């Protein structure tokens, strides 16, 4: 009888909870209460049903026979016979069957085209960003920047003018203390007033490299903790990244604003198979 009492109690509690949910809803709703009342309403049903089944229904154990293997002897041979009978009539028309194979193949090729329409061709897209010779570096509010406006040891995320928010063009400006910066060979003159610019896309898996520690001149990627050494051309100094962050060649235009000398000279972001075939 305990089962019956428990089940009855559970159903009553469930009913009360469900009705209370209606009240809460009408009064404007409240997420925690809604979840709790839903839980009690459903839980009461669950407890009631299980208690009912456990205590008041036949639990056996019942025994039922089972076939260890489902196959019956001889049946598969009959199937094979029927199939081969049919197949033989097809096989007599060799030429037709081959033609069918060819036209199915051709259709397979035709079916590729809609899939091709799903996206643009990668082509050289992964090798370029929106930076061009003379693109002004602007903040995400579209503000151009003079080197002197940047406090020493600060970082700022910029985009090329006209392409604010474009993912592959996000770039970090860092103003280094005067004299700290030694350009890598071939990168002389890329850092007017000791302002350097690196791609903000982590070369590991593409997260924005968000954190800069001025005391060690290191950039950190929060996703898998890659570390990049800014004074060494942002080459990886820890974590899983294997390639340096590409550097954007900077210059100053006639009005004193920071501009790019060109696009990045290597592909930005994580690697792909033909990255080195620039």
């Amino acid at each position, binding site marked *: 009888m305990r089962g019956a009492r428990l089940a009855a109690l559970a159903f009553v509690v469930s009913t009360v909870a469900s009705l209370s949910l209606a009240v809460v809803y009408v009064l404007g709703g409240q997420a925690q209460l809604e979840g709790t009342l839903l*839980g009690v309403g459903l839980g009461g049903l669950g407890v009631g049903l299980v208690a009912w089944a456990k205590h008041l229904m036949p639990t056996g154990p019942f025994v039922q026979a089972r076939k260890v293997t489902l196959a019956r002897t001889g049946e598969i041979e009959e199937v094979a016979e029927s199939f081969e009978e049919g197949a033989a009539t097809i096989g007599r028309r060799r030429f037709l069957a081959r033609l069918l194979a060819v036209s199915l193949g051709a259709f397979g090729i035709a079916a590729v085209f809609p899939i091709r329409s799903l996206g643009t061709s990668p082509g050289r897209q992964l090798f370029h960003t929106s930076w061009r010779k003379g693109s002004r570096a602007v903040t995400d509010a579209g503000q151009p920047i003079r080197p002197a406006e940047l406090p020493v040891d600060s970082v700022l995320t910029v985009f090329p003018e006209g392409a604010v928010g474009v993912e592959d063009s996000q770039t970090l400006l860092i103003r280094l203390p005067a004299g700290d910066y030694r350009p890598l060979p071939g990168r002389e003159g890329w850092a007017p007033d000791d302002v350097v610019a690196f791609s903000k896309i982590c070369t*590991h898996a593409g997260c924005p490299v968000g954190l800069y520690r001025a005391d060690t001149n290191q950039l950190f990627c929060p996703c898998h903790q890659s570390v990049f050494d800014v004074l060494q051309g942002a080459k990886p100094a820890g974590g899983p990244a294997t390639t340096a962050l590409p550097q954007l060649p900077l210059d100053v235009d006639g009005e004193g604003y920071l501009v790019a000398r060109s696009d990045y000279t290597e592909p930005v972001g994580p690697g792909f*198979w033909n990255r080195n075939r620039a």
Partner: protein
Amino acid sequence: MLKRLAAWIDDRLGAAAFAEEALNKVFPDHWAFLLGEIAMYCFVVLLATGVFLTFFFDASTAKTVYSGHYAPLNGSQVSSAYSSVMHLSFDIRMGLVIRQIHHWAAVVFIAAIVAHLCRIFFTSAFRRPREINWVLGMTLMILSIFNGFTGYSLPDDLLSGVGLRIAYSIAISIPFIGPWMAFLVFGGKFGSPQIIGRLFIIHVLLIPAAIAGILGAHLAIVWRQKHTQFLIPGAAESNVVGERLWPTYATKSVGLFFGVAAVLSFLGGLVQINPVWLYGPYAAAQVSSPAQPDWYLGWLEGALRLFPAWQFQIFGLEIPNVFLPAIVLPGITFGLLYAWPFIEAWRTGDYAPHHVLDRPRDRPVHTALGMATLSFYAVLLFGGVNDLVAKWFQLPVESVTWTFRIMGIVLPILVGWLTYRLMVALRLDAWERARHAPSPEPVLAAAGAAAGPGSGAARWGLAGFFGAGALGAWRLLRRHRRE
């Protein structure tokens, strides 16, 4: 009335024979057999709550200005997708609770699937004739993980946006076809506006339909082959011992559905999940830290973090770093899982049909391999939070990463060896016991009982259970060291 309806249907379909068989069908009764059912009921909850969410979600990246009850973001530029999720969470009555139940259901769904998989593996339920269902189940697990990720990515918040960026980077890392594949899926270079709309239709139609179809086949095969059973008194290869579907098993199962839905409702109401308003809308150059995916992708995240900074060049072609941990490792993982029943049949030469389950101790090598593998993925999972661990212990991330790398190699060996020894000892112990007392011990109590008389595992609750288990295991191992 009901009788007349039944007669009407039977007249048209001749369904009476099937119904008669169905009502009397016997199902073995064991708590571990409910794991798959729990997963299935999570799927039902996912469908019900998910349909509700689709009525409010706007799968578009078009820019709009958010205005609603969440003041801190009022007036900011966000995508329509993000705005609609905010609207659903703050302005639609019961919207938030249903969204959170949906997310919790997804998390529990995959957890139940993995637990179910472990149950199947450790009781060797995948052997002939159940290889097909193993393969179908594996496919269901992969589809579910994939759908979890697509759903997680829909709100277009900062956390999920970064997750998508990583997925794109992993895709382009595949040699030769990677960039093309990524461009076809994302509609071009990363950042093209199509992706949210595409993910939406994948998330709400393609994958759920596939899951529903495969799940149907999965269940139909269980029905046809009849469920496996433990070797309880009276059980044999040629029978099923348990409860009849009608009325007991069906009532219990419906009760379980309500129970699962109840737990998910409590979670959805009381435990916050995926608060997209705290992460903020996606913006290309922003990132939230620390950033972790849902748990079912934690092992992949861990693999990305723990894999050393290696990168290979072959004939001037690059194999990017992420290719190995994020494509090759899952490839091997799922490939091995798919092939496991066949590999094991081939290694053991056991091609006979099995309907009675083995206990883990009956097959020490098998169990040890399973535990070693599990421990490896557990290390990866914890590797996915190496930054949090480092913060917690006030250690440099680098040393935490190295610790995990070493553990990833040492722990599986240790766990495998220990499991093997333990299983062998348990088996010997069971044999001895069988020699002295004719009645077999209940399966789970053996370890606790081995701790000696009056260990009272039950009295001390879960901690006592594990404590007694560990003590028992220790004594067992010592006792059987010589054998």
